[in-house]
């Protein structure tokens, strides 16, 4: 899909813009979950890991791919779970106030 370097670069640049705009709106209150959440997203590399590990033959590449899957999954699962744990703690004032 990204055989065309110009298209790839265009997507990259636009995504950077989107990232900057979206992230700079997150208030300091939520910076810790933002950090763990975006950290989890960097586990997207699991996509590459699956592609590397998934081919039929058992070569060094598939072994590396397997380790990569484990690593990336830890990152993704751990990241989203811990973010969820944190976020579920943020509560509005109950009626007592």
């Amino acid at each position, binding site marked *: 899909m990204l055989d065309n370097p110009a298209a790839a670069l265009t997507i990259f640049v636009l*995504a950077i813009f989107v990232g900057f705009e979206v992230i700079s709106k997150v208030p300091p209150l939520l910076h810790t979950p933002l950090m763990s959440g975006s*950290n989890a*997203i960097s586990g997207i*590399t*699991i*996509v*590459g890991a699956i592609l590397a590990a*998934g081919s039929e033959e058992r070569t060094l590449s*598939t072994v590396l791919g397997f380790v990569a899957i484990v690593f990336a999954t*830890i990152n993704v699962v751990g990241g989203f779970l811990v973010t969820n744990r944190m976020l579920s703690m943020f509560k509005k004032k109950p009626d007592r106030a």
Partner: protein
Amino acid sequence: MNAQLIQFAYLASAVLLIVGMRNLGSPKTAPRGNLIAAAGLLVAVVATLLVQGVVSYGTILAGIVVGSAIGVVLATRIQMTAMPQMVALLNGFGGGASALVASAELLSYVRVGEEPTGIVPLAIVLGVLIGGLTFTGSLVAFAKLQELVSGAAVVYPGQQFVNGLLALITLGLGAAMVMNPLGLDPYFGMVALALLLGVLLVIPIGGADMPVVISLLNSYSGLAACATGFVLGNAGLVISGSLVGASGIILTKIMCDAMNRSLGNVLFGAFGAVDQTVSAGASGGEQRTAKGYTPEDAAVIFSNARSCIIVPGYGMAVAQAQHAVRELSDLLESKDISVKFAIHPVAGRMPGHMNVLLAEADVPYENLVEMDQINSEFPETDVALVIGANDVVNPDARTDKGSPIYGMPILDVDRAQHVFVIKRSMNPGFAGVQNPLFFNDNTMMIFGDAKGVALKLVEAVRDLS
């Protein structure tokens, strides 16, 4: 599945990730945002499983199961105070995965004997380099924060020269690889050096600066994912990686701004090693003593107070005092004293760290007020209660041009009618500078562990009424 369709699935996944991140912008929508982002990742994974050529489902499943198990254990066991090291660890895995993927791709090009073209060789090199560096760098950061190794900055003469030289050699090897992608010798050298560099670049940075480093490494892990996206020609990876890259950079900048230090100073300044002694001397010319008070003394003042602002800092996190503090604040509120929490952007050891801890102790988030909003309220406040915070309430940052923290925005607690400071000793905080606040006439120092003192305060206030 049809190749076009899979690409649309990646696009859908990217949209979900973006929408999820947008929802992270408010505490009400944030839990949903996190779920949406997770769903986005799930879509990408499922789409990938349907790619032609992906056949070894056993291997893949095994990897996912092992990884998930570890991830679940980590995420459920970790204490909220240990979030910085948790993020460091996870981040290391992400970077490592990207480096592995880039390497695996390179090896399969080599095996097939086909030379990668266009932007791919450069992307492979960047993936391996950034990913590898992120991996070891994050692990060192983790070890420092978890106190597996000393948190102090490790410095030696010629350090920057050595690091610079190594970095140059690494880049040279990278360039060699881009020229001749199928020659594996430079590859192995580059991997080794990238891993080494990750360690060497992080050890001279003090433990308390780790969050900045982690945030920067977080950005790197995003960029590494982005590089693998270019390697695989996968727009989903490129987009998500860029998002993370941007996010990490922004958080890094926020932290540096809140400390009034440049990124260069954080990375190469070896704060927490040399500076410490120098700066302690700077404001410690005369030797004054601060008076210690008991929680009972403080309780008397509370009995006449109408308003209190609590300023939590790193010490509250270390002492795990958030629940005790919450108890105290409830008690004060029940005595019709208005209580707010003043949150400095870099209080604690991670941006937003105090918010998470206090949220854990069920403090409603409306009571957590940002620095800019609350600073004007101190003069009309009866009691500012500083719990384990130090640098973020140091008035020298406002007035003493010679202080290493001069210019750092602070919470103006010294302007309140009374200031109570809970800490264990007169030792300085992370920045290593004395705090004149402790010697002010309206300041009462209450020495002791934050949790213990907070519980004693609760008792004393209760007894008085």
